[in-house]
């Protein structure tokens, strides 16, 4: 059985006949996973310094020089790295006395941190498949981002206590600003909210759960939702980037709602994370420091938004980006700031970030060209083996070599 690192569902039931770098036949791989396999021969990164090709050893030495010669280093990315590389990354940050961060600092980090700290109840995807009767997708469109989410776990499958699947045993509720593909599946369970209207929706839902008449246009639909949630035996809320960005840093309303639902019945929270091992990085850093992102090791352990990439770009004088593409994701004004900082980019593929890097260091694609381990979005640890042979270095080896060299 093969493995897919195309997203944080980390599907482990893949059957694939892969010949000459192309898939001949496959079972269970979704479109996105298929493209992930096909990508092995596309836009691969080569070792380079200042745009000139060099050998891998020279690239690693040049990368170490960039890091060692700076005062305020930022190590950023890590969502597409193995657990071993993430652990080595945290050690490197300690050794350098620098800042380490991932994209969760400007998106879903606060929600993940509350889950890891035990403030929000959570469960595994397997619990969802076996027991969940109500799935709420909030600002989340797994049909697009995690294509097998609904079919493997949250809506369509039969499970231990959910033998009649979506036809009778499961309810899908989608709260979103647009009728996404997931919302189309949920049909009557779709609640369209105004941009930024998540807080207002939460208030109305809290009122409903408290037995009050909600201040919304369609009172009947909201009252029905309240009844469904109250009657749920095993509910789960999948939080997407839409919710995280709408709430910003203020999770109080969401925390109250989760608390209220758990007074009435049982509701868990699982974040829908994009990179295959985002959860792994958050857990690795949390285990070492009590924080999921934005940590400085300059004076012991410091944490705060000032150590998230969005703010720290103003202070850092060198950055290493591992398995990520902040130049493509960050607002243009911040991407321009990033371009001014001497940068090392460690990645399997070329992207806008590797294009502006001073030093590029290629790595093997985890789960396909090299084995390792990772945490699924629900926190379950999975181990995977290499699937094809490769000359590229594993990400952990690159980070460890840098550690020796700095």
């Amino acid at each position, binding site marked *: 059985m093969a493995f897919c690192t195309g997203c944080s569902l980390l599907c482990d039931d893949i059957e694939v006949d892969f010949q000459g770098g192309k898939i001949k036949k496959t079972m269970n791989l979704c479109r996105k996973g298929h493209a992930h396999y096909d990508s092995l021969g596309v836009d691969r990164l080569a070792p380079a310094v200042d745009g000139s090709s060099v050998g891998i050893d020279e690239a690693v030495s040049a990368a170490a020089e960039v890091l060692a010669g700076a005062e305020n280093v930022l190590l950023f990315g890590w969502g597409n790295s193995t657990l071993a590389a993430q652990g080595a990354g945290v050690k490197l940050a300690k050794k350098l006395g620098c800042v380490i961060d991932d994209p969760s600092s400007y998106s879903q980090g606060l929600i993940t941190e509350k889950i890891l700290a035990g403030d929000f109840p959570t469960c595994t995807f397997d619990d969802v498949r076996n027991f969940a009767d109500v799935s709420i997708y909030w600002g989340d469109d797994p049909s697009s981002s995690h294509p097998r989410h609904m079919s493997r776990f949250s809506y369509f499958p039969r499970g231990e206590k959910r033998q009649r699947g979506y036809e009778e045993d499961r309810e899908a509720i989608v709260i979103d600003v*647009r009728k996404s593909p997931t919302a189309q599946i949920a049909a009557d369970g779709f609640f369209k909210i105004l941009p930024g209207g998540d807080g207002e929706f939460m208030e109305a839902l809290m009122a409903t759960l408290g037995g009050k008449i909600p201040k919304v246009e369609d009172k009947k639909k909201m009252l029905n939702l309240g009844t469904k949630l109250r009657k749920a035996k095993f509910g789960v809320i999948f939080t997407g980037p839409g919710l995280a960005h709408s709430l910003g840093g203020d999770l109080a309303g969401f925390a109250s709602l989760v608390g209220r639902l758990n007074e009435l019945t049982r509701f868990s929270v699982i974040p829908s994370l994009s990179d295959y091992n985002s959860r792994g990085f958050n857990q690795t850093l949390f285990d070492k420091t009590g924080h999921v992102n934005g940590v400085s090791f300059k004076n012991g352990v410091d944490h705060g938004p000032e150590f*998230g990439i*969005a703010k720290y770009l103003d202070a850092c004088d060198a950055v290493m980006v591992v398995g990520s593409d902040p130049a493509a994701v960050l607002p243009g004004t911040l991407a321009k700031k990033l371009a001014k900082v001497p940068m090392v980019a460690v990645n399997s593929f070329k992207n806008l970030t590797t294009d502006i890097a001073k030093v590029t260091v290629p790595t093997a694609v985890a789960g396909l060209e090299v084995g390792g381990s990772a945490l699924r979005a629900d926190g379950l640890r999975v181990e995977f083996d290499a699937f094809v042979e490769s000359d590229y270095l594993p990400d952990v080896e690159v980070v460890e070599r840098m550690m020796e060299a700095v």
Partner: protein
Amino acid sequence: MAGKAEVTVITYRGIFQEVEEALGMYSEGYRDQSALVVLDKGEVKELGVEDGQPVILENGFGKVVVTAKLSEDPHPGVAFMPSSPWSAQLASGEVGEDGILDLKRFRAQVSKANEAVTTIEEIGERIRAA
């Protein structure tokens, strides 16, 4: 009639975009799935904007040319755009106290374009030229 309309742009991720991104972000396929904006047909009729034609999206943070997709479903004042390097050029670089960025929503003006859709190479050059 030429002119501009002010819209709130909401970003999203689409499965076909995810697929094209995995297959390489320098491809035409990725640009086709990313450099686009879904506009309310009724709302932009007066601007002379047609389905499949390029439009300019601009605000105080940047400007890009993307392909217009006109939707029959009304969503006045709101446009939808795949989350991508194109949308990032228009997202606010202002960082909240908590460090969170609002990458999902921004205001922009839309108008008919007489120029080609911005390429990812152009975006890369703009970033580098800073």
